[in-house]
């Protein structure tokens, strides 16, 4: 869709930039007239051909890139399951999940696709749930259409109008609790032209958790309302558990390979200062949108927001993914890892000891 629309958008951006320079105003001051006119006329929506069932994946896996060059009807079926899982060693928590994992299943569609979305709520659930996908243009992002009692299901259809990496989450009352229990995930709307090819793609999502017991206190820990209210989490985690993506569970890649991370932040409360220890992000698709920044050390990911970061793993090491609000790493669990194996590259990095970098895990 909208080759025209894109040109208009780019043109408007130039106008805004020029305006900003001339008048010394911030770009954040608001869109120039014309940006709001960039709505795609119905006639420009791509023709939808055929139907396919979406491939959903659990973290840290990402469905394969879309090779289609046309829009289709994508059917997504996602079931809400309330289940006890490991939060940390010796600590359990009753998570509320989209598809049985925290974060929920990764959904991948193409710009222009018509998405037929079915949300099911498991019969044994205790409470009703729904879903708000930030990729949706429409009432509540689908929340209104998908309220489902235990044992029920609901379906709605939306057009994936704009490319980007979007958060989805539950929006039933009390919303902060549904999110704090793990009800979030990511949906990628690939641009028509696709994303540049990389060797590996992974799915990482941060969330903050509030338990009655302090960090590490063993047993089945109930949700703590007061800590949520005070915004004082006991756990800040990548992919829903301490160590979900470290040690044996850290993905392994080869030095010289390229990596793309689809990173989300479910919150409910904290903003992430996302950083990779021992790497520099070659590319950051800022906030999951079309703006590209390069050579970035740390990128901000708001609660209910995302980022796409890409880097080439130049040397063998264990790349640590952290929230650089660093006590969250040291005390609250905000740590994931990617193991990079291969030959040392002393012209890039030399530890002067003649042996491999110690495994940080």
């Amino acid at each position, binding site marked *: 869709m909208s080759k025209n629309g894109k040109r208009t958008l780019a043109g408007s951006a130039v106008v805004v930039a020029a305006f900003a320079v001339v008048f010394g105003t911030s770009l954040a001051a608001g869109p120039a007239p014309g940006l709001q006119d960039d709505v795609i006329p119905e006639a420009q929506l791509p023709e939808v051909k055929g139907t396919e069932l979406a491939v959903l994946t659990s973290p840290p896996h990402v469905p394969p890139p879309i090779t289609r060059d046309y829009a289709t009807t994508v059917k997504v079926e996602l079931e809400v399951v309330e289940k006890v899982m490991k939060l940390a060693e010796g600590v359990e928590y009753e998570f509320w999940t989209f598809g049985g994992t925290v974060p929920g299943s990764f959904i991948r569609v193409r710009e222009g696709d018509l998405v037929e979305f079915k949300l099911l709520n498991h019969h044994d659930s205790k409470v009703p749930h729904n879903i708000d996908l930030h990729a949706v243009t429409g009432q509540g992002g689908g929340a209104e259409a998908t309220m489902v*009692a235990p044992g029920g299901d609901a379906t709605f259809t939306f057009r994936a109008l704009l490319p980007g990496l979007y958060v989805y989450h539950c929006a039933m009352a009390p*919303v902060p609790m549904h999110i704090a229990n793990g009800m979030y995930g990511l949906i990628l709307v690939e641009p028509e032209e696709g994303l540049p090819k990389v060797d590996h793609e992974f799915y990482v999502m941060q969330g903050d958790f509030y338990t009655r017991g302090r960090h590490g206190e063993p047993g089945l820990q109930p949700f703590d309302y007061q800590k949520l209210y005070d915004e004082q989490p006991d756990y800040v985690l990548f992919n829903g558990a301490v160590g979900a993506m470290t040690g044996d569970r850290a993905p392994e890649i080869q030095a010289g390979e390229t990596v793309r991370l689809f990173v989300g932040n479910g919150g409910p409360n904290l903003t992430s200062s996302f950083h990779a220890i021992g790497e520099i992000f070659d590319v950051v698709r800022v906030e999951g949108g079309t703006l590209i920044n390069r050579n970035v050390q740390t990128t901000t990911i708001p609660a209910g927001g995302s980022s796409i970061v890409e880097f080439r793993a130049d040397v063998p090491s264990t790349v640590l993914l952290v929230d650089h609000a660093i006590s969250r790493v040291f005390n609250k669990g905000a740590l994931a890892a990617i193991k990079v194996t291969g030959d040392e590259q002393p012209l890039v990095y030399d530890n002067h000891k003649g042996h491999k970098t110690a495994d940080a895990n």
Partner: protein
Amino acid sequence: MKALLLTAAILLSVPLAAEASGPRERRDPEPAGMVRIVGGSFRPLYRQPGEELVTVASFLLDARPVTRAQFEAFVQAHPRWQRNRAPRLFVDANYLRDWEGPASAGALRARELPVSDVSWFAAKSYCEAQGARLPTTAEWEYVARADEHRRDAAADAGFRQRALELALGRRLQPVGSGFRNAWGLSDLHGNIMEWVYDFGSVFAGSDSRATSRLDRNITCAAGVTSTGSAGDYAAFLRYALRGTVEARSTTGTLGFRCARSIP
């Protein structure tokens, strides 16, 4: 048809709540298994526009949720409520799905569990067969404010946290084995969620993210204006469930108990 029945239910619930004079009431004040609740006023989670307090007249309420054994006796006496006979207009496909047979609740150990997988229609008929009725939302919420010692502990953050933990805790334990409050009522928090007569009349909202006003667009939900109530997450969960089920819905964690008006 369903819409008509729902409308009728909602309309009927109003005089029930206001005058507390339900149909088929009995004169004997405290039948077996029931507790006399002294009426009073409280500030509910959701209020009608302009409404400050809700007043509940004195009434009688089952001390415990209805058990599988009790519901078995009901379907044996009223075969039209057996799962293979109940019309799909009144029950969904999961009605009494875990039962051993259409008129048999199953093993001995299951008999004292609260009955679940029952629709609003079935629950209402059960209560009517006992000369009783379902409690209203106001009545249910009124008694749910009690902890073990106080009839109104709703402002206590510690009690609210406990009620929330109970609500999310283990389900379907033998009735009476859990939390028993100052009224002498068991299992209001934890074990099972419960149908109320006017379940659909207050709508928790599909998209309720603001703390002060849950959803301005939803009729009847004036929202939470007292800051204290915004922390009553157990109540939010109850209202959310009541707002999403239909009268024919059944779920594995939704049962009921019966009430009677006092003349």
